[in-house]
């Protein structure tokens, strides 16, 4: 467990032996490459486009009727009424609705792809409870036809997470939903990594069943705490190395540990926590766990009981990513209420997100949000479409740490846009055109913009 200690000892000894030489010469500084699999994403060919006369939900809580949206060089240039632009392709969107590109913070596309096959089941490294060293991006099969299906549903950005078998499942990665035959070709440039953690039933069932820890919820907590304690030591060792080196000494670098690199990234605020956690009492403990070790507890995923601690989530700045109505498949999903998202959302400074965790419902995340809005309004809430859209756009972008780049139709942001045939919160709603960085990536009525995965190509 304390894997780096021996090398620290070696370092200490070597510093002691060579102490007299330290001012003479420094060895080359050991730097950790934090981006070894960099994005190669390039936006698809685009033209400047002016979409006119749409009902626009901006993602900032605003609705503008009969509005125009101008996309220039892949960015949102202007949103307003009566715009014009020389040389821009005009799209008449009379009677149609326009929203920011839809963002799903919880997907396993590519790591649990279709067709379901043993050979492609790459989402859970269920071999030990802490696998912070694995990265979901290394499992992604970019040919998963599910990516095309999701694009037809308006998904422009999505986070691919490892599964929830482990206390620490590994790193998640945020993708642009564009066709590519490499993972790097989809990777969202400069999006932070996520770290998947899991509370509750799954880890204790998976490892309890193997007669190893954790087999209880207290075992879960012990597992997190031991890992964070070790990560704190690891970070301290690297911080000391950095400080000593900066002071002109010639320290020996701590031994590299890929697992602890990820946890250290969290402690440094560079990697965001995405925590599969259903129950109120467990989320409350995970918030304290973050405080105990000095990191932010991030986004709670599934969060069936978030409504029970809505105040606490808002106070602590946690996002909660939820389903509208999934429940009952296990004990920790028993206390579902259909207004969960709305109750969380009603608090000041809240961050309510609707997620899918499904290759099927990711295709209709708009309707998933709609179900919440209508059920809440049936029961005393007054939620408007211009607000409900934030659950699958702006708030989702905030959860993923990319709110400065996408999630709303504000000037200068990436031109990620969906044109809907009608109010997107209707069961009959369909995305007609989808744009990522100003480039059309899907058109319901033009086969040219309907990508097909290698897997489907040439199938009888």
């Amino acid at each position, binding site marked *: 467990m304390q894997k780096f200690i021996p090398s620290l000892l070696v370092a200490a000894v070597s510093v002691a032996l060579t102490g007299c030489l330290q001012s003479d010469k420094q060895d080359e500084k050991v730097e950790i490459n934090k981006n070894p699999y960099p994005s190669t994403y390039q936006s698809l060919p685009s033209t400047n486009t002016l979409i006119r006369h749409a009902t626009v939900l901006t993602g900032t809580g605003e609705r503008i009727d009969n509005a125009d949206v101008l996309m220039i060089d892949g960015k949102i240039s202007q949103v307003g009424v009566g715009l014009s632009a020389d040389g821009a392709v005009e799209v008449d969107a009379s009677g149609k609705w326009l929203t920011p590109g839809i963002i799903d913070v919880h997907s396993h596309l590519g790591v649990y792809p*279709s*067709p*379901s*096959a043993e050979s492609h089941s790459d989402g859970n490294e269920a071999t030990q409870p802490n696998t912070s060293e694995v990265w979901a991006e290394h499992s992604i099969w970019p040919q998963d*036809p*599910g990516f095309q*299906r999701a694009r037809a549903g308006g998904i422009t950005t999505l986070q691919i997470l490892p599964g929830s078998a482990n206390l620490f499942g590994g790193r998640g990665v945020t993708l642009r939903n564009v066709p590519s035959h490499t993972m790097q070709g989809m990777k969202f440039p400069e999006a932070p990594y996520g770290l998947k953690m899991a509370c509750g*039933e799954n880890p204790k069932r998976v490892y309890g069943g193997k007669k190893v820890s954790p087999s209880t919820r207290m075992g879960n907590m012990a597992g997190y705490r031991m890992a964070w304690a070790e990560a704190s030591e690891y970070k301290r060792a690297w911080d000391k190395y950095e400080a000593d080196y900066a002071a002109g000494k010639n320290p020996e670098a701590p031994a590299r540990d890929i697992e602890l690199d990820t946890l250290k990234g969290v402690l440094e605020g560079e990697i965001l926590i995405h925590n599969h956690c259903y129950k109120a009492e467990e989320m409350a403990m995970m918030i304290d766990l973050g405080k105990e070790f000095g990191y932010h507890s991030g986004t709670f995923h599934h969060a069936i009981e978030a*409504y*029970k601690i*809505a105040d606490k989530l808002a106070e602590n700045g946690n996002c909660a990513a939820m389903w509208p*109505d*999934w*429940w*009952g*498949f*296990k*004990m920790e999903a*028993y*206390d*579902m*209420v*259909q*207004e969960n998202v709305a*109750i969380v959302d009603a608090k000041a400074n809240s961050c309510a997100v609707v997620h899918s965790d499904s*290759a*099927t419902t990711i*295709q*209709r995340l708009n*309707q998933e949000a*709609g*179900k919440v809005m*209508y*059920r809440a309004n*049936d*029961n*005393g809430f007054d939620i408007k479409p211009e607000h409900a859209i934030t659950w699958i756009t702006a708030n989702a972008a905030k959860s993923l740490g990319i709110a400065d780049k996408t999630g709303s139709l504000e000037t200068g942001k990436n031109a990620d846009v969906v044109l809907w045939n009608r109010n997107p*919160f*209707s*069961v*009959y*709603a*369909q995305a007609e055109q989808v744009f990522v960085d100003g480039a059309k990536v899907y058109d319901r009525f033009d086969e040219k913009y309907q990508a097909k995965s290698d*897997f*489907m190509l040439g*199938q009888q």
Partner: protein
Amino acid sequence: MKLFKTSLIALALATASSASADTIAITNAKVHTVTEQGVLDNATVVIEDGVISAINPDSVDADTTIDAQGKNLTPGLIGSMNQLGLVEVSAVSRTRDAGEEKADITFDASAAFNPYSTVIAYSRKGGITTNVVVPYGGSKMFKGQAFVADLSGDLDSIVSTNSAVIVDLGAKSKGSRAFEIQKLRHKLEDAQKALAKAAEKAKDDKKSEKEPKRDEKIINSLLSGEKPLIAYAERATDIMALLALKKDFELDLVISGAGDALRVAEHIATAQVPVIIGTIGNLPSFDALHSSLESAAKLIDAGVNVIFAQSGDTHNLYQLRFDAGVAVANGVSKDNALAAVTANVADVFNINAGRIAVGKKADLVLWSDDPFELSTKVEKMWIDGVEKSTTSRHDALRERYTAESELPRAYTK
């Protein structure tokens, strides 16, 4: 105000099953009969003794009259192919009664049906009044038999048992799919021979034959067409093999799943075999490479009798109407979509419901608007003519956690 609402819910939960023998007239409704009558505007439906006794009578003399204000009245929706009442929490083994390792063709899970399951009250929110429950069975090809239950939440919920035989065919994680199709054919052939032999023998010596075993009787009921055979199958080749069995043995065949049905839609239509499909499954498997959201519309256009079933976990049954809406968005007419969750199911499983017609069970739903729309809710519903609440435990939890109270939440009841 919140506290008041909470007590209303408690009341609703307590009186959810109060019976009524009075006549009820629902007036001024947009009545979707799902019969040749089509849709009747400003219509009146009268309920008496749990059945529909009149539609648009000359005069109305009912104990209770409900003005529907022009809203949609449909038959109650009929769910199918799930484990309603047999599972409370899927991952809690002691609340599961749909599977049994030793289950065979005789397995009838209806004795385990729990009318007090919270899933039942919750499913009423989706306008579901009746459900065809199927067991998981065990490792054998035959999973047991379906039964029909209503969603009244009463002890007498079971409508009929041994309603259909379930057989699981198609892709296998071990072994070959051919083996089980072959086994099914052999079983039917052997039973047919045995019946012929018994008939011959009975003619010769007029001595009463020894009674067939339970499983033999069930196979015989398939051969006589008394009982439908529901076969899970996806790939076109499996469907064709089943159609051949139907032809050779004159089975009352129903295919469930049928992801690849579109390739052989004409054959299915010609054979008049109903198919039970999910409308939202559009991800490829090797058995159903081309399933798409348009499959439902194309099958219906090809003349196939289609039933929609909610796919996945039983707890999602209430979403059936939304799935029907997705089918409509992808080309199915609203009338056909409604039939696919009412009359078509009733026909296949011999349920006296699913249509608004005189003599049918008064399983009715009055909707705030379009039954398939996300924004619509159930305003009123009746099962066997008794009004039922759509309130469930979920509402009580919501009220508890949105109520104002100085005491811990546990005191808000």
